């Protein structure tokens, strides 16, 4: 119940294309869903986050889509650029739980 399942494990996208990473969760008590971005040799950093009271959140080229009934959420990167090449982690936690549950990560490579 505490797991967050992330797919795919790795993803290769052409420059200018759309990158899509999917996550699913079981625990309906989760109410905060962040995405973290990690570049090689660095720690993860918060990229964008959503609460389940909205179905979509957009920040620049990055969009989270949220489907509460299906307990799924996804990250879309529009007009993907080589600089977006990184590992992306989805995560979830509940309002009363400050221990974030991370997905296993997706290694994204954008071809120049």
């Amino acid at each position, binding site marked *: 119940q505490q797991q967050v399942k992330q797919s795919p494990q790795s993803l290769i996208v052409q420059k200018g294309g759309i990158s899509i990473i999917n996550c699913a969760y079981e625990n309906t008590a989760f109410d*905060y869903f962040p995405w973290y971005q990690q570049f090689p040799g660095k*720690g*993860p950093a918060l990229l964008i986050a959503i609460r389940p009271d909205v179905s979509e959140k957009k920040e620049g080229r990055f969009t989270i889509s949220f489907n509460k009934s299906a307990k799924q959420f996804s990250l879309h990167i529009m007009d993907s650029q080589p600089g977006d090449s990184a590992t992306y982690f989805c995560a979830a*936690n509940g309002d009363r739980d*400050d*221990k*974030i549950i*991370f997905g296993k990560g997706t290694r994204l490579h954008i071809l120049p």
Partner: protein
Amino acid sequence: GAGVSQSPSNKVTEKGKDVELRCDPISGHTALYWYRQSLGQGLEFLIYFQGNSAPDKSGLPSDRFSAERTGGSVSTLTIQRTQQEDSAVYLCASSQGLAPYEQYFGPGTRLTVT
């Protein structure tokens, strides 16, 4: 302001030796987390401190691993009698301890056990 810092950035040690890894969280952050990341893998939760509460040690893989947090600030992760399988990047994160509990990560310590 300053972010989360960790030291050393790299540590090479011989199998069987003890190592100490240090984390300086963001000033004022009450929550501190340790994670382990093996090469190309996800984030493995190790231990979590929140204020003066007893730490959540549920992720520590064995009794060779321990951590303490002094004065509610700096934390030290200690690995005794290191094994080759302990080789990984050890990441520390801190948060304000309030919803939505955004975590700020340090750059990590790369530990290599030879």
